[in-house]
């Protein structure tokens, strides 16, 4: 199990390969990457604030729960903070399991919990100013299925 909270960009493909190589016995590997997306064509950059200390603890706890619940061979979470440019990765999760159903469920669980329970806050900088991204009700609702 690996959890990394960092300002540096990362190479999702290289991380996926390293993760897969280290998980012998896993027939199924699922990855999710979140990319800074310019929805309305005006995004200049994204700022992510976090709560040092709590962030790592919260992610580790969520990841341990996923590993136990779906008998994962391994799990990886990388989440950036600081200033992020359009088109670059914000974060990724990867899960490895004997069967695909478990790898998928665990990755979705991790994403749902990271979205709403890990202390990160996104701010979008556009030509017209800076705005904190509002939490979406769907994200809070998504937790109920687990």
């Amino acid at each position, binding site marked *: 199990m690996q959890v990394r909270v960092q300002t540096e960009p990362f190479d999702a493909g290289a991380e996926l390969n390293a993760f897969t190589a280290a998980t012998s016995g896993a027939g199924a590997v699922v990855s999710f990457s*979140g990319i800074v997306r310019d929805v309305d064509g005006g995004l200049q950059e994204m700022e*992510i*604030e*976090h*709560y040092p*200390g*709590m962030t790592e*603890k*919260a992610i580790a706890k969520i990841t341990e729960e996923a590993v136990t619940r779906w008998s994962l061979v391994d799990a990886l979470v990388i*989440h950036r903070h600081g200033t992020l440019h359009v088109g670059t990765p*914000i*974060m990724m999760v990867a899960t490895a399991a004997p069967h695909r159903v478990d790898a998928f469920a665990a990755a979705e669980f991790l*994403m749902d919990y*990271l*979205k*709403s*329970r*890990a*202390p*990160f*806050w*996104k*701010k979008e900088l556009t030509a017209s100013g800076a705005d*904190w*991204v*509002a*939490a979406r009700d769907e994200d*809070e609702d998504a937790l109920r299925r687990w």
Partner: protein
Amino acid sequence: MIDVMYFAWVRERIGVPSERIETSAPTVAALVDELKAREERYAAAFEDVSALRVALDQELTDFDASLEGVREVAFFPPMTGG
């Protein structure tokens, strides 16, 4: 004495990322009331606590939680990571 931290727009409204506060408030809600009574910027930040989250010693909790033995309180809007 308790360390109080603020994040995202709560931090921006209050104007500092953290401060050390002398309080005997028994619960989070009581602490919020104390702060709101202090200055307008706290009143603005805590206007609608249903839009806020609180963590005690880095664990998410509720506004009616006890502050007994707590060293660090953090207030912030709902998280938007991932």
